[in-house]
């Protein structure tokens, strides 16, 4: 495996960059693995990497029905932050944020994590109190948060409409300076390359069509490339969790909905960090290529189609232009939809299932990308030790029935109210 470095690129000047090898192998599936991970998205690949690197479990396969990183990993708006309100979420996402800070070196793959700041705007005194409360909660849990005045916000993002008579005037904001964005594809590819180097088999175009069970216990999977035996089987297919779990007779507290995102044509730098809002439902950032990347609310009705309805993006754009008027004459270049697992409290599910040897990682709603490292780390721990890591223990599947929901927005069990 050729190590990635600037020197390597310079060497390529003399050989037409011909010395690079495939970032991952294209192996045939073996008959048995210690762990089979269903889903070659960022989370599944990260899980495989940490199983191999942290727990020494290298006889691992990642089965991907299409191409790795082709699901929600490649369809999100690449935000990374830990600015939540509740402790279990703080602990989990902040652990992840710390991993992001060293991920490029860890993987020897530049995932371009760029902590340019995640700014949440407040549009009234009430909003500012809510933001202060969020910031205070973060700081109590040792997460960076800073309340900003109007002037500070205006200086940070000069393109914001700071006029007093705006429909949603900007009164200030809360910034997590360590938040930012990363390059989504690079996360999947970086984990894949690093996992492959440790012996993990990444098997693309291999769709799981059923589970092999002895009694209740899952002992393998049926796939489009044949039966594969598994000591433990890990579902990691957010968006399609319900569909895959149903093959093992499990019904989940999850509803699949479309979340759309869009990108504009590239322009010179105009948005510095990530802009969100306490009252509006859009989030805006600018990619390194110059495109304004943004999203809004989910489509709010069940769908597996990866296609949304235009009114939803139109609504998000109207909100974005209300905040940043200069967006008006940019052009939307592409819009796309991802299928999200909307859980019934807005928080993810990582842990064991009632089916022996079957594990579940899903329910990420619209916030899974930022969780990739922590999700992989804790899921790997859970798979390796059969017990949840303290960080993912609160996110178990049984919490809904018990009443231990982690409901960040207090809206209850209907995903379309979230």
């Amino acid at each position: 495996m050729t190590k990635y470095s600037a020197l390597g690129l310079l060497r390529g000047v003399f050989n037409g960059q011909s010395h690079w090898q495939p970032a991952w192998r294209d192996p045939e599936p073996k008959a048995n693995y210690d762990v089979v991970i269903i889903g070659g998205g960022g989370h599944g690949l990260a899980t495989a990497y940490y199983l191999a690197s942290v727990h020494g479990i290298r006889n691992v396969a990642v089965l991907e029905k299409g191409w790795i990183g082709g699901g929600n990993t490649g369809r999100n708006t690449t935000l990374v932050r830990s600015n939540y309100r509740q402790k279990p979420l703080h602990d989990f996402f902040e652990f992840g944020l710390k991993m992001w800070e060293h991920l490029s070196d860890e993987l020897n793959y530049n995932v371009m994590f760029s902590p340019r700041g995640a700014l949440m705007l407040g549009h009234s005194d009430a909003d500012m109190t809510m933001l202060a409360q969020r910031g205070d909660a973060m700081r109590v849990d040792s997460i960076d948060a800073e309340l900003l005045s109007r002037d500070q916000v205006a200086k940070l993002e000069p393109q914001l409409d700071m006029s007093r008579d705006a429909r949603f005037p900007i009164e200030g904001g809360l910034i997590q300076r360590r938040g930012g964005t990363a390059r989504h594809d690079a996360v999947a590819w970086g984990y894949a390359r690093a996992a492959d180097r440790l012996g993990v088999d990444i098997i693309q175009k291999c769709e799981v069509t059923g589970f092999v069970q002895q009694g209740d216990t899952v002992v393998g999977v049926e796939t489009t490339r044949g039966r594969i035996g598994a000591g433990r089987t890990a579902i990691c297919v957010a968006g399609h969790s319900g569909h895959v779990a149903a093959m093992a007779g499990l019904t989940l507290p999850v509803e699949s909905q479309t979340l759309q995102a869009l990108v504009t044509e590239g322009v010179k730098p105009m948005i510095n960090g990530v802009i969100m809002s306490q009252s509006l439902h859009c989030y805006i950032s600018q990619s390194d290529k110059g495109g304004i990347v943004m999203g809004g609310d989910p489509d709010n009705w069940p769908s597996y189609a990866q296609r949304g309805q235009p009114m939803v993006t139109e609504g998000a754009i109207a909100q974005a232009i209300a905040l940043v008027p200069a967006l008006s004459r940019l052009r939307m270049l592409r819009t796309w939809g991802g299928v999200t697992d909307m859980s019934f409290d807005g928080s993810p599910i990582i842990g064991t299932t009632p089916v022996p040897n079957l594990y579940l990682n899903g329910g990420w709603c619209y916030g899974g990308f930022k969780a990739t490292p922590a999700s992989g780390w804790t899921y790997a721990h859970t798979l390796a030790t059969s017990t949840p890591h303290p960080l993912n223990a609160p996110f178990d599947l049984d919490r809904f029935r018990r009443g231990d929901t982690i409901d960040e927005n207090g809206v209850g069990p209907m995903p379309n109210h979230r």
Partner: protein
Amino acid sequence: MMLITCSHCGPRAQTEFTYERTVDSVVQPDADPAQAMEQLFTRANPRGLDDELWRHTFGCRAWLVMTRHRVTHQIEAIRAVGPEALP
């Protein structure tokens, strides 16, 4: 954006409707608590047809049960629910 044929109003834009919940999530007020929680907190969520409860919120406000395909978005069946109404 789907075109939904409301049983009362005929074909209307999806914008006039709101999705409310799946039929398999409906909890009757007199249900046994354990069963009620099972229904409230699990969904079949199939990658295919399912029964959904929608409301013609910005139209005639009627509640509709739709059998809809989750991948193609095609509506296989639709019926209004609610009190008996004149035609």
